[in-house]
């Protein structure tokens, strides 16, 4: 498995940011984690990376749905509409278990939808699985397109 280098976390809850990073730190040493706290910032960042000739394009996006400025759904919509970006695996990681949100996310081509669990053990498991998934996608892709 290719070791993941660039990970984008889009999350506004401080506690969840800390937890996600803790869980990611477990597994990786050589990584670049960028955290953005609202949907608009995420969209701006991603647009920038495209124009900068794929500079720091993430290889996995962990995306919350309930975000200030622009929601996770809007970020998904943005990713979906850009051919340079719609190949990036997006794991939706949110507290909402509403069918509406789930269907909406999948209709915008989210790679998978995970509901934030209440226990640490489960939490770790989910983040590790998300990582594994991202690594797998990377190993299957054309390295020239995604590697920095």
């Amino acid at each position: 498995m290719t070791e993941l280098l660039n990970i984008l976390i889009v999350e506004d809850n401080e506690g969840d940011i800390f937890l996600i990073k803790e869980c990611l730190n477990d597994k990786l040493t050589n990584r670049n984690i960028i955290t953005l706290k609202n949907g608009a910032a995420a969209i701006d960042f991603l647009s920038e990376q495209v124009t900068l000739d794929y500079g720091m394009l993430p290889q996995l996006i962990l995306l919350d749905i309930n975000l200030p400025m622009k929601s996770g759904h809007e970020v998904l919509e943005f990713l979906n509409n850009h051919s340079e970006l719609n190949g990036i695996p997006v794991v939706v990681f949110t507290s909402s278990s509403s069918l509406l949100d789930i269907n909406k996310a999948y209709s915008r081509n989210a790679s998978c939808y995970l509901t934030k669990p209440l226990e640490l053990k489960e939490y770790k498991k989910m983040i590790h699985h998300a990582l594994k998934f991202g690594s797998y996608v990377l190993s299957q892709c054309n390295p020239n397109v995604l590697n920095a």
Partner: protein
Amino acid sequence: MTNTVSENKTLQIENNELAYIIHNSLNEIYIFDINTLKFIYANKGALINIGYSLFELNLLTPLDIKPEFTAEKFEELIQPLKNKEKEILLFNTVHKRKDESCYPVEIHLQRMKYKNADVYTAIIIDISEQVEFENKLIETTKTLVDINERLHHFAATTAHDLQEPLRMVSTFSGLLEMNYNANLDDKGLQYLNYILDGSKRMKLLIDEILEYSLIDRKSIKMESINLNKVLTLVKTDLNEQIKDGNALITLPTNDIEIRGNFSCLYRLFLNMISNSIKYSKEGLNPEIDISITAIPDYWMITVQDNGIGISPEYFDRVFDMYVRLPTADEIKGTGIGLAICKKVVDVHNGKIWIESQEGSGSKFIFTIKM
């Protein structure tokens, strides 16, 4: 036989007295000509309510006091009376008084002979009060449905919003335990355990409240369901609990299709069977028997166990939210499981009740509308 003079006189007096009653009745009585439709007679009740004098009415027809009818529509309406197909017509409409105000009426229309001519007679009941009550009822029902919906939404939203801070408590306590347990003495670790245990229990509570609030008549989809399929799934999902408790579960021998909501019924049986295993008697392997029979209009399902039983004084209360039996003190539970069962039965238009004695097992019986 001819009547004697005195018999004639009696008949005349009786006729007069009957006429007096009819004339003074507060129900409206009208007589109108079969051809011109002009009013020939109206009793006191009619004159009082409609506002016209008899003299004025003689110049009017029913069309003048019935704003909902055109001449054609009225012709159409009285056809069955005209061609003697029907003896009486019953219909509702609105009457307009002389002062233009209107009131809802129920009309009984017949064709009769009066002074040797064919006439229509109408007996009319002013149903203003009934209509008002009906409207009030509709209004109240609407309000109740609205309140119920909002309560549901409130419970669901609250349960959902409570999850986030709980997640913080739970996950960070977990982190503390994982990364700092070397730094904590026994007491410290015990405190941490209480925190973790508390948050686990709260998670269970929130999940069940959410579950309860989501069972709602409007959002439930009914379909044809194979009962044994539901029960087999429940058995599979409870496999660990069944093995640990050495429980024996007997499913019904007959294979029945019922009309209901799959996930609600799954939840009902899951809660019930889980309870029967949980509240088993010390030293006795739990045995649970499920059977189903048909009664008029309903399926009747029985879940019988050999557990600790329920004292009759609690039969009603156990289905309330958060109620737990004092005999079940050491056993973990939220008190919501049976409330969910009752709600599911309600939504399936059935009833649920218990037959039990403390110490000698419990029988849960519930019905589901066919």
